[in-house]
């Protein structure tokens, strides 16, 4: 099973599309590793520097409709090769969300007010997140502050994460 804990990268915007996560010109890459330096290269986000701000981060927290647009699985792969296996948002585009779980990664939706609270409490601070998949909780920690956040994903999503992805799951079953 993949690692779902680590430092948080806050992307304070809605509707971040997969062209922004990984531009189409890199879709000619023959290996997933070739995507690594280009993650979020074209994102429109004031003050964000992909060269500096991605390094050492393992979890993304963002707003609504993350991963909209193109179906390219290069988007989750670009996250994966940068050791980011968990994205938390108010909502996701369908294909992106499915692509994450199909790779044994997680795209977890939280209620709007919870995301708002997380942004107001932790954005701009070095924050760590620990995922407990048995209790279905995230624990967010920064200097002197701590917050436990419950989440829920479906039985099927849990099964895909445990199997390591849809191919592993489907190959054993169908």
């Amino acid at each position, binding site marked *: 099973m993949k690692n779902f804990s680590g430092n948080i990268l806050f992307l304070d915007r809605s*509707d971040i*599309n997969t*062209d*922004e996560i990984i*531009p*189409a*010109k890199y*879709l*000619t*890459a*023959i290996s*997933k590793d070739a995507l690594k330096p280009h993650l979020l290269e*074209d994102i*429109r986000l004031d003050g964000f520097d992909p060269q500096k701000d991605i390094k050492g981060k393992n979890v993304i927290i963002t707003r*609504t*409709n993350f991963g*909209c*647009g*193109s*179906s*390219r*699985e290069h988007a*989750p792969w670009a996250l994966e090769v940068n050791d980011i296996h968990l994205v938390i948002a108010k*909502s*996701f*585009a*369908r*294909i992106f969300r*499915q*692509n994450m779980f*199909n*790779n044994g990664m997680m795209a977890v939706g939280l209620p709007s007010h919870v995301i708002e609270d997380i942004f107001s409490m932790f954005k701009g601070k070095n924050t760590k997140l620990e995922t407990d998949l048995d209790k279905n909780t995230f624990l967010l920690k920064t200097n002197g502050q701590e917050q436990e956040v419950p989440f829920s994903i*479906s*039985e*099927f999503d849990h*099964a895909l994460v445990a199997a390591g*992805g*849809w*191919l592993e799951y*489907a*190959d054993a*079953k*169908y």
Partner: protein
Amino acid sequence: MGKTIAEKIFDSHRVDNPADDILVLKLDAVFCHEITTPFAIDDLVSRGKDRVFDPAKIKAVIDHVSPAKDSNTATQGKIIREWAIHHKIHDFFDIGRNGVCHVIFPEKGFVRPGYTVIMGDSHTCTHGAFGAFAPGVGTTDLEVGILKGVCAFHYPRTIKVNITGKTPDGVFAKDIILSVIMRLGVNGATNKIIEFTGPVVDKMSMEARMTLCNMAVEAGGTCGICYPDMTTVDYLWEFIQDEYENKTAALESFKKIISDPDAIYDDVVEHDITRLAPQVTFGYRPDNVKPVKEMEGTTIDQVYIGSCTNGRIEDLRVAAKVLKGKKINDNVRAIVSPATQKIHHQSLKEGILEIFMDAGFCVTNPTCGACLGMSNGVLAKGEVCASTTNRNFNGRMGKGGMVHLMSPATAAATAIAGYITNSQLYTNERYTK
């Protein structure tokens, strides 16, 4: 309780119900192109599972970068070409016989009412025009589809968009779908199917219905879907005539899958287009839409007519009608990409390409190229493109470029003017309605 068309398709294709509201469906067709398929092929090979569930149900094309522009894209083409040959996938379309996937596959009669179709491409939703469930998927879903012929989905929820009224002059399917996206928002239909119904849809050609369904994903929709009718039967007849006694029999059979009158919808949207004017996007989201009149005068550098949204023969005819006998503005460069070899050929025969060339357009071979900034018309930083494509995302047609989405008629008029404007062919009446 009644069922929607999507629910009926799910019921008839159900293989498993592994959890919650997840259904695993049997697939009638798996479409492949050279950008998202090679990773699936490589992964299957590396796992020792280089097999296909049914070579007759797999269709493949090279379209995104065609012809190859460099070693990497040549390699992507080589991987899918050799794989198609190896697995006896007879419906493989290489350059010279190819076309943009969502235009060529319907043109070949590969999509039928009631089908389940997947492809590693978000605009697979186009094929819902035939009354099929046709969602775009990622490479892993595609890979499992190729290997096992199945795919998992949440049980469908549907928004019905009932399009009514009289279609004003100069308003086309593209203007209608842009206005629907504006109304629903970019995530207004996320995890839902958009069922397009109503007298306006009933009167639409299959080409126009494909334009409509093509952009369902820009409202977050899993796919668009139209009811099969006699227009559908007429379009498919050359491919299905051996299967049915006559067209009426085919229609009777297809009609069984259309939604019941008491089907349950998440939402029903009444969309009257009587007062709709031609539409154009601004900004970086496909729901940033306003009437062309409000953007009038915005100067542009490039015009692009083509893509899975608007590269069909009907689209080229409309643009040519506007362009006939005129020249594009000196400060503009314009590109037209007929979406398939057949459309290219037909537009040549009809004299349409001559009109484009006389006007000063560059005519390219069929490819997706410019739409996603991969080849054949990439923008430089700061450049503006009037485009008949489907996405105005930041950098979509080239880093630092700006894209305004519009109909082929508006794009042609814009090429002549050098700034965003309405088609002069259509009267000013539309502004006063």
